[in-house]
């Protein structure tokens, strides 16, 4: 009763969740490309796209991708054998358990008319598949918590996925063990199938099961005579053998049975196997209901992403479908971290501790943006920093096991950030610092030297070479050779301060002037100034350092 109710409740939640999640694929968009497209337009574009693809030669591409990337997961194999092995164990084992064991009434018994879960090869295979999943889980735990693969961040959803899977597997395994040793289970079966009346026979069969099938009986202790065992064997072959292979074949459950043998009778009296059965199926149903909202949703979204990416390309495909594909990609991400392992900028994380540098950790931010969640300015600044540190090397896109075109996602993310007033950091810093240090705009103001910020001078000295500004004697060589200054008829007007004036303002401790000057932010870093300085002032390096200081300052303010 509880079983049926729970199953239908779970199925309903799963179905509704699935509809909800799939509907988001047609509602979410990333960046500004598809903001003007209504859901109806996107649904019709998708239907049209799918039909036209299925009736074209592209269907061969889809078939190839399905076999290689979805079923065999070659993309994971190319990156890391251990990971591929881990995933194949979990995914292969679990799928086979689902089809053969959970859905045995609908699949296995239809395919094999002689199917009994306690008969070989089915009994052995069930344990084999279970062993695969457990092995996969063990490797997953090993990678995350012992090997500590770098840049592999473990989030709550990764924990949940591992916990749910572990509970299902362990409860099932222990359940099998307790059933093997269970006396009450044996009695029920014996009554139903053997239907023995003579005390002698009952005892013989029981003795045989205790000896050969690891059952634990309160009545049979110590050795039993051979005659009785022979009789038991005879009875067993008559009534039981048709449905029961030896428990050793269920090698995992058999191991558990051996281990719990000393306490088997108490467990049986406490009806532990029933409790385990409840835990087992309720967790399975919970997982089913939770699937659309969990990491497991990738089971559905990732194949779709792989197939869609195989036949779609930005610029060529309908932009409505690209937007839909990108929304699917958000669900397809399994947070496996392969992208971050190969990310070209990832090592910087040690120095700039912003996880948004890592592609796998940018995905949650992207999800938040796509769902229209209101983010604070601080959160958006952090996302901006992470997004713009990306060098567009595309390595993440090349290695993504589920084929997500991450690079396109990042460019859409940048577009969105620009629209929201979070542009390329250099542009942002130039404007932000210009607004804060506006003294530069008051051309005729007489500056009082006493107000100069002496602390500023001390700050500009992390590297010996930067300190060289103090020997500047104002010959203006740097300014003469500067191509930026040379680009304008009246450079002072455009640039605020010229290179030699920036060096001089540093000597005076005038933070306001140095930061606010446009010259600082338009520097090409061509090193002409530094090369031509007769005093050995590292002009370009000083400008670099000033920009660094400005960024540090802006971060502190934020």
């Amino acid at each position: 009763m509880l079983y049926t109710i729970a199953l239908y409740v779970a199925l309903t939640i799963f179905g509704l969740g699935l509809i909800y999640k799939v509907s988001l694929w047609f509602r979410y968009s990333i960046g500004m490309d598809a903001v003007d497209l209504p859901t109806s337009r996107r649904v019709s574009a998708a239907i049209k796209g799918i039909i036209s693809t299925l009736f074209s030669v592209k269907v061969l591409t889809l078939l190839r991708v399905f076999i290689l990337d979805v079923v065999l997961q070659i993309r994971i194999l190319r990156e890391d054998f251990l990971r591929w092995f881990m995933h194949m164990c979990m995914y292969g084992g679990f799928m086979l358990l689902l089809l053969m064991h959970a859905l045995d009434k609908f699949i296995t018994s239809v395919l094999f008319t002689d199917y009994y879960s306690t008969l070989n090869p089915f009994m052995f295979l069930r344990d084999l598949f279970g062993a695969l999943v457990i092995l996969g889980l063990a490797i997953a735990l090993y990678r995350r918590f012992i090997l500590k693969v770098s840049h592999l961040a473990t989030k709550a959803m990764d924990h949940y996925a591992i916990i749910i899977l572990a509970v299902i597997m362990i409860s099932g395994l222990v359940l099998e063990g307790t059933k093997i040793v269970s006396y009450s289970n044996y009695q029920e079966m014996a009554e139903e199938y053997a239907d023995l009346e003579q005390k002698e026979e009952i005892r013989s069969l029981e003795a045989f099961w205790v000896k050969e099938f690891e059952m634990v009986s309160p009545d049979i202790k110590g050795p039993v005579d051979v005659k009785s065992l022979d009789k038991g064997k005879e009875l067993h072959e008559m009534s039981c053998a048709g449905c029961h292979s030896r428990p050793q074949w269920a090698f995992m459950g058999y191991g558990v049975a051996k281990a719990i043998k000393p306490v088997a009778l108490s467990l049986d009296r406490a009806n532990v196997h029933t409790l385990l059965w409840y835990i087992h199926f309720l967790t399975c149903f919970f997982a089913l209901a939770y699937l659309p909202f969990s990491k497991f949703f990738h089971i559905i979204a990732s194949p779709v992403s792989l197939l869609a990416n195989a036949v779609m390309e930005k610029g060529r495909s309908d932009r409505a479908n690209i937007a839909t594909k990108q929304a699917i990609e958000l669900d397809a991400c399994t947070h496996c971290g392969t992208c971050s392992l190969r990310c070209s900028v990832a090592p910087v994380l040690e120095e700039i501790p912003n996880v948004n540098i890592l592609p796998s950790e940018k995905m949650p931010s992207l999800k938040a943006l796509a769902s229209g969640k209101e983010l604070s300015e601080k959160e958006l600044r952090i996302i901006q920093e992470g997004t713009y540190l990306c060098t567009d090397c595309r390595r993440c896109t090349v290695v993504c096991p589920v084929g997500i075109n991450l690079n396109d996602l990042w460019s859409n993310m940048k577009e969105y950030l620009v629209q929201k007033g979070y542009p390329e950091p250099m542009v942002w810093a130039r404007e932000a610092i210009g607004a804060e240090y506006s003294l530069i705009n008051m051309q005729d103001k007489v500056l009082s030297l006493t107000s100069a910020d002496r602390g500023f001078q001390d700050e500009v000295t992390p590297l010996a070479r930067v300190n060289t500004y103090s020997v500047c004697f104002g010959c203006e060589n740097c300014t003469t050779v500067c191509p930026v200054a040379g680009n304008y008829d009246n450079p002072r007007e455009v640039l605020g301060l010229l290179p030699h004036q920036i060096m001089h303002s540093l000597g005076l401790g005038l933070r306001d002037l140095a930061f606010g000057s446009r010259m600082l932010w338009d520097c090409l870093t061509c090193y002409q100034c530094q090369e031509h300085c007769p005093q050995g002032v590292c002009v370009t390096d000083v400008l670099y350092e000033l920009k660094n200081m400005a960024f540090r300052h802006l971060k502190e303010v934020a």
Partner: protein
Amino acid sequence: MKFAIFLGCNIPVRLKQYETASRAVLGELDVELVDIAEFNCCGYPLRNIDSKAFVLSSARNLALAERQNLTMMVLCKCGYGTLRMADHLMKENASLREEVNEILAKEGLKYEGNIEVKHLLSVLFNDVGIEAIKEKITRPYKNLKIATHYGCHALRPSNIVQFDDPVAPTLFDQVVEVTGAQSIYWPSKLECCGAPMLGINNDLSMNLTEKKLTDGKQSGADYLCAACPFCQIQFDTVQEMILSKQGADHHLPCILYPQLLGLSMGIDSKTLGLERNRIDITEIERFLSAV
């Protein structure tokens, strides 16, 4: 001769032909290349934002090459300048070195400063040598005028990058002339291409590019020649943008040095990726002498 080839972030994605052409040419010249998959961003884009992050990023690459005891050969001038600067800072500044090495130690890496960073052109000039290149030239150019673009970060600051004389460099011109082409004098040879300001101040960036293109054209160049992805993209992709925007008449295509050299060695244009350039450069084959 064996080098760890450092491609950086741009070349594999936006300038594949630079890589294929370089590999083809170096293969002919018996230079062995080792690919280190763990290489990361050279640190150049971080220099404006965070110097320590830049040094860390660079130093990790240096440490990876040092672990295999290999000299690094960089194809990008900005990457070259950045790695040289980081190498210098790691040697000059003991506390910085310690700090960076402490972070690298988490991955079992350490940079001790025992390897050299070279640019593709310096490898060709100093390690392979003009004579060895000359032997491989089968189809020298005739009447071809090339304007060499040196690239700021290879030349300056000269005390650190040590590529060539910063005021009167000849290295690039010599490797161009060995192909039979004439390397012309042009006033803005050593000036910036404008790339660093792209996306930050586009007007300034394109103005500088345009000035160089006009100068090259007026000085009589048939082609510009670059050996840096940033410069090449600026003279190719960005020039295309400038042309389409203003329809200006200073169309001056830019060829990557290994493409120029490769053609004169008789390597086919497909391997050299000529058709991958945005502005057509296939006409340059007409300057080649017959086999």
